[in-house]
Each structure stands twice: as structure tokens, then as C-alpha cells.
């Protein structure tokens, strides 16, 4: 933690919130523009990775614990699969979004809701898995001194 990292730290402090907001934008705007849960999940994970590269792995693991990251990944997958079970409980086929709200033809709320929810599941699973993989790699080495580079 020497002084010459101060520029990196200030720039990262500005960038990380913007990256996070951009990740959510990519997710919620996925119906209208390129992008979706996969890309949004990776962008959110990248924001956390950038934080840990600048401020160290320890404060990152205190903010987002490894167990939390794994839990989010599992919950995301369950959320996706759960939408399928929900549509089956409403009398449709697995992942048949029309059945979610028992809509007539010509109504699209169920389709839009299904897509947003499963994309949220994708986002959680991808972001959680990426952060878990990163922690598995980065957690093994404690800290790297500047001379090592």
C-alpha cells in the first residue's frame, strides 16, 4: 500500500459505481438492446474484481464473502428453474411463460415477466460463479508485493 497507487484508487472509486450501474442497465435493457443476464453478470463481477485488484482481496472478501457469492450463484440457478416450476403449477409446460399469469393470446405481461426473471437468475448465477472462480484463484496468494511484478 504505497503512495503511488493513489491515482489508481481515485479513478477506481469513480469507475466502480458507473460499472455497476452499467451492469444493471445492460440487464434491465436487455429486451431492447444488446446484452442480457450473461453480460450483466460478468460486468457486475468485473466491478468487484476491479475493486479487489485496487484495494486488495481482503476488504473485498469482507464486503462480499465467498459463501455469499456461492449462494447467489446457486439461488440464480434455482430462480431460473423455479420459473419453470411456476409455469407448470399454473397448468402450462415447463418454462412456458404464457402460462405464468394464465393469459389469453395477445397479452404479453407473462412473457415479459418470465424473461426478466430468468434473466435475473442468469445474472445471479453468472456473477456469483465468476466471483467464486476469481476468489478461488486470488484467495490462494495472500498479497503480491510491487517488486514481484
Amino acid at each position, binding site marked *: 500500500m504505497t503512495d503511488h497507487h493513489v491515482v489508481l484508487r481515485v479513478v477506481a472509486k469513480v469507475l466502480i459505481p458507473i460499472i455497476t450501474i452499467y451492469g444493471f442497465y445492460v440487464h434491465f435493457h*436487455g429486451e431492447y438492446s444488446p446484452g442480457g443476464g450473461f453480460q450483466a453478470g460478468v460486468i457486475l463481477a468485473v466491478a468487484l*474484481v476491479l475493486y479487489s485488484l485496487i484495494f486488495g482481496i481482503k476488504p473485498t472478501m469482507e464486503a462480499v464473502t465467498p459463501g455469499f457469492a456461492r449462494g447467489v450463484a446457486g439461488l*440464480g440457478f434455482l430462480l431460473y428453474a423455479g420459473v419453470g416450476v411456476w409455469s407448470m403449477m399454473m397448468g402450462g409446460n415447463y418454462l412456458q411463460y404464457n402460462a405464468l399469469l394464465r393469459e389469453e393470446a395477445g397479452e404479453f405481461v407473462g412473457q*415479459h415477466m418470465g424473461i426478466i426473471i430468468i*434473466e435475473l437468475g442468469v445474472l445471479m448465477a453468472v456473477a456469483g*460463479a465468476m466471483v467464486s472462480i476469481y476468489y478461488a484463484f486470488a*484467495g490462494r496468494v495472500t498479497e503480491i508485493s510491487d517488486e514481484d511484478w
Partner: protein
Amino acid sequence: MMEALAGIDLSVALLNITLLSTLFVIAIAIARLRSLFAIVLLAGIYSLVSAVWFIALDAVDVAFTEAAVGAGISTVLFLGAMVLTARTAQASPNKARHVISALVVIAVGAVLVYASIDLPGFGDPNSPASTHIGVEFLARTKPEIDIPNVVTAVLASYRGFDTLGEVGVVFMAGLGVVMLLGFGERALGAQLKQGGNDEPEDADLGGLDD
């Protein structure tokens, strides 16, 4: 020859040539370099340039994924793997290996070039991609799902099953890496939980004990 060139937009052709030759130069540099740090960064740049090329081919979603995953996350993961293993690579002294590798590379390249002769032209309206089921998705997305982005409609609704499987693969890949490598992470997590500030002498050894 001139008839074949008649329909080609010169600016697009120049852009493609520039991007592809940049990719070629980066690939040669990656093969020649011995410093793994430079190789990892060049691989990230390779991903970024190919993302730009995907945009030139109108594959914006693929370009987005390539930029986020290829240039972002995998560069960081390669760096993490490099820190755990070695910083430089040595050329193998075994000359026979070099010859075998060169033969395999040339053979695979020749097969790919041979296969590319049969590919339909870029944007060909009679290609299987633009005559088959793709047209149907384009026509049905508006009346059936009512969202503007057909890629999202196909990915999340028409092919929801496939995407579920894909998410399962990503989840299991993450779980697999954590189970293989996660001991150090667990050791560091436990250390954080105890509130201990001192660094362990060797995170790997500490992890193997539990």
C-alpha cells in the same frame, strides 16, 4: 475476378483487413513471446480486437460477450492462474516436438481453409441461416413475445431450455473450480472471520490441512 469484387464495399473490406491482420500479428506475438504476463495481456487485446470485428460483422451481442468475458474476466483469471504458477515459459529443447506441433497446426489450418470454401457468403440471403428458422423467429417474435430484441426472445423464451442448461453449466463450472482450488480461499475466509491480521506463511499449506 473483377466481377467478384464488384459487390464489395471498399471501406468495409479495408476495415476487415485491418482488424484481421491485427489479430494475426497479435497471434504471432503470443506464439513468439516467453513472458506470460505479456501473453495474458495480449490475449485480452486479442479478445477486444475480435469484439470490434464482431461489431463490424453486425453480431453485437456476441461482441458484447466477447468484450466482457474474453477481455475482462478471462484476462483476470489468466493473471490469477499465472500468479499461482510461473511468470515465464521456456521453449522446449525437444526439436521433434516443434516439428510435430507445426505439422498439426498446418494440417488443422489447411482443413479449416478447405472447409471455409463451402461456407455461404457473408449476408447471403440464400444461406441456411437466413432462410431457415431464423426468418420464422424474426416474424414470430413481435406477435408472440412483443419485445424488440429478437436475440433476447430466442435466448430467453424460444430456447429457454438451452439457456437453463447453460446457466447450469456456468454454475457447475464455478462450483468445480471452487472445489478444486477453493482451499486457500477458505483459509483466507476463516482468517478474516477470526479477525486475525497476520498473513499466513503459506496459504496453500494452510489450506491442505483441513
